[in-house]
């Protein structure tokens, strides 16, 4: 069943999306085909910026020039006919003589029918065309094309706040408050993400002061100056926005007043966040200075040896492992010591000897166990591997149910341990003796578990009880059925 909510605003959504989906559709550009979207996007942004700067050079001829320059910049070559095709394909759908708009159907939940949506990417800019000395049509971005730029704006960090402020100003002047509001939201988001970036840079610097070394001192000073000026400009722009809004309130229509006051609120918010940004930036400047002057030793003392570059790429990969100790030295320090039982030294050695003497010739870990009536060779490793997750669950949740266990892969002996637990309650001893011939096999199981799983040491001293879970069916383990048992411990 589809949820009804998906249809809320569905028509508007599609109207936003269709221009993006159709972007560049239908163009056949020969060798330029793979680069189509890059070229189109670049053209759109260039036209957009020219609009913002009141640059009227946005006629068909100019679009061709722009396109050619973009293609050159990409290092590509193109037939003049293909360059024309790009511009024509951006302006009109289908044959260029017909100058048709783009269109696609969309579902309108209000009428519950499919409607046709038509739009263009570039429109006739009447204002600029009248003012321009050029007799040809001057183009500007349609709202749909602007949306494409705005949707993809989030990815660009370098897109300065200034342009957004200028554009918002322009929108306010034209009385387009709805768009201005949208703009302010994005501006706010942008400022916040820049703040985040400064804070992360600060953290990176603290971790690795050597980052500073990568930057040329003179270049950095210039950059600092530039940034200070930029921040001042941005502060001024917020003031401009405020005063413009104030003016507009005077002559505003009733329905616009609400939007205007919303705008004022957002501008105040953004200006406040911007101040925070300014603080972060300046404090980072100060910190960098501090690093350079006071902690110059931090920057110079340790040559940063990298595992990847200095060990692997320089030595291991080209020269191989010259002796086994190399592996020990490189890997052992990646791991922490494991706190064994507090056992006397001789007992530790005894354990080693005992294991060697059983003469188990195991090639692969999961070879099947030869079961016999007289169990002489028990693969405790395999059994403890099977049981480990059960005990982890027991430790985490105070109970472990047989029904949670996938028994395929368990040896018969491992399964049989369940029944041994059922026999009577089992208290895990504080110090597990090493004698593997201990009568209670559960003690031996715990000993082997503790060797590999230190977290299970928390089980020491706990009493494990086993019951049958009523109302559950028996569990099949490949060789027979077993009651649905459950281990539990009291906390």
């Amino acid at each position, binding site marked *: 069943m589809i949820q009804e909510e998906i249809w809320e605003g569905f028509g508007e959504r599609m109207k936003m999306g269709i221009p993006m989906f159709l972007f560049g559709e239908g163009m056949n550009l020969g060798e330029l085909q793979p680069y189509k979207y890059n070229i189109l996007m670049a053209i759109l942004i260039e036209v957009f910026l020219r609009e913002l700067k009141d640059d009227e050079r946005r006629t068909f001829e100019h679009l061709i020039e722009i396109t050619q320059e973009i293609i050159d910049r990409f290092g590509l070559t193109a037939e003049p006919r293909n360059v024309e095709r790009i511009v024509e394909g951006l302006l009109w759908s289908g044959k260029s003589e017909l100058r048709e708009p783009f269109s696609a159907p969309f579902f309108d939940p209000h009428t519950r029918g499919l409607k046709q949506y038509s739009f263009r990417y570039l429109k006739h800019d009447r204002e600029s065309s009248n003012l321009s000395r050029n007799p040809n049509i001057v183009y500007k971005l349609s709202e749909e094309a602007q949306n494409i730029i705005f949707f993809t704006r989030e990815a660009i960090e370098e897109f300065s706040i200034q342009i957004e402020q200028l554009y918002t100003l322009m929108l306010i002047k034209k009385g387009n408050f709805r768009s201005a509001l949208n703009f302010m939201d994005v501006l706010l988001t942008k400022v916040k993400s820049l703040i985040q970036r400064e804070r992360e840079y600060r953290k990176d610097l*603290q*971790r690795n002061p050597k980052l500073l070394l990568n930057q040329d001192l003179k270049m950095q000073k210039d950059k600092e100056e530039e940034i200070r000026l930029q921040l001042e400009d941005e502060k001024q722009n917020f003031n401009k926005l405020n005063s413009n809004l104030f003016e507009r309130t005077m002559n505003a229509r009733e329905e616009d007043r609400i939007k205007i006051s919303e705008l004022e609120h957002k501008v105040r918010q953004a200006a406040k966040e911007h101040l925070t940004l300014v603080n972060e930036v300046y404090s980072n400047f100060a910190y960098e200075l501090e690093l350079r002057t006071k902690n110059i030793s931090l920057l110079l003392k*340790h040559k*940063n*040896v*990298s*595992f*990847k*570059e*200095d*060990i*692997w*790429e320089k*030595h*291991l*990969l080209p*020269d*191989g*492992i*010259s*002796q*086994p*100790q*190399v*592996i*020990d*030295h*490189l*890997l*052992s*320090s*990646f*791991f*922490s*010591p*494991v*706190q*064994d039982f507090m056992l006397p030294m001789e007992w530790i050695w005894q354990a080693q000897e005992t294991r060697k003497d059983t003469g188990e010739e*195991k*090639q*692969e*870990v*999961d070879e099947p166990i030869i079961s016999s009536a007289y169990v002489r060779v028990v693969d405790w490793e395999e059994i403890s*591997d099977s049981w480990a997750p059960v005990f982890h669950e027991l430790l985490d949740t105070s109970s472990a149910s047989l029904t949670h266990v*996938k028994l395929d*892969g368990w040896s018969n002996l491992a399964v049989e341990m369940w029944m041994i637990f059922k026999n009577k309650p089992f208290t895990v001893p504080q110090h597990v003796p090493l004698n593997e011939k201990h009568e209670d096999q559960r003690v031996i199981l715990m000993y082997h578990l503790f*060797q*590999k*799983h*230190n977290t299970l040491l928390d089980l020491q001293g706990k009493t494990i009880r086993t019951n049958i879970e009523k109302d559950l069916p028996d569990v099949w383990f490949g060789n027979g059925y077993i009651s649905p048992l459950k281990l539990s411990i009291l906390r």
Partner: protein
Amino acid sequence: MSLELVHHVSTIYQFLLSKKIVDKKDPNLRFYFEDPEIQEGVKVMARNFGTAILEAYERVHLISMPAGSVFASSFTQLKNKYSKVETKLHFYTVSFILFVYFTEIDSVGHGSRSRGEWQMEGMTFAKIAERVSSVLEYWEKRLAGEPDFSQKWGINIEEVIENWDNKDLLKLDQERKVKSTRTQFGYIQTAMKMLEDDKLVKVVSDQNLSIVYPLDALYDRIEFMFLDHERYQLIKRLIQGEDGEYAEH
């Protein structure tokens, strides 16, 4: 040395031993950072037990030293498990997997993904297997093409390569989280489990796809491992074929 000093030193060491990775701001480490004598004492105690203190940016680690440690570690347990001549290749295989993994996620260098990216996206077992295969392939080619390349090896690398090549990547009916030497995934699981037990990575299984996410603590160890100049020099000498101070055991 005063009794109080001894008490503080051993308390702190015991604490580090049980936690292994501790935030620098942890109150239990207060004396370690405030009193240089205590700090020195803890370091000496660590050394005596064949361990070492690793101070990273935000955390303190207790790690094992290559030789003469009273304690076991995931690494020594691996080594002991595959200590016989016939099984050593399993030990080497798992070791190589660890090397390859560390190299992949080491975020230094041009074009490598940042730590953040690795921590967000993780690395699948399949990818790890692919990287291991390509390293082994590279060595195999050189062994075939360069007559004296084989001399450089102090371990039976040919056996390791052949064993890896002959193993299936995985067995469909096998539970993914099983450590084994039956499949390539089994080896990788062994390696990753070691790291996970030491709280250096997180392994997530999703729809039979196992993905490894490196944790901050792993980067601490990769970055600080060689900050000790002496140790770096020792390792370099070892790698270049000169005798190490420690005998193999």
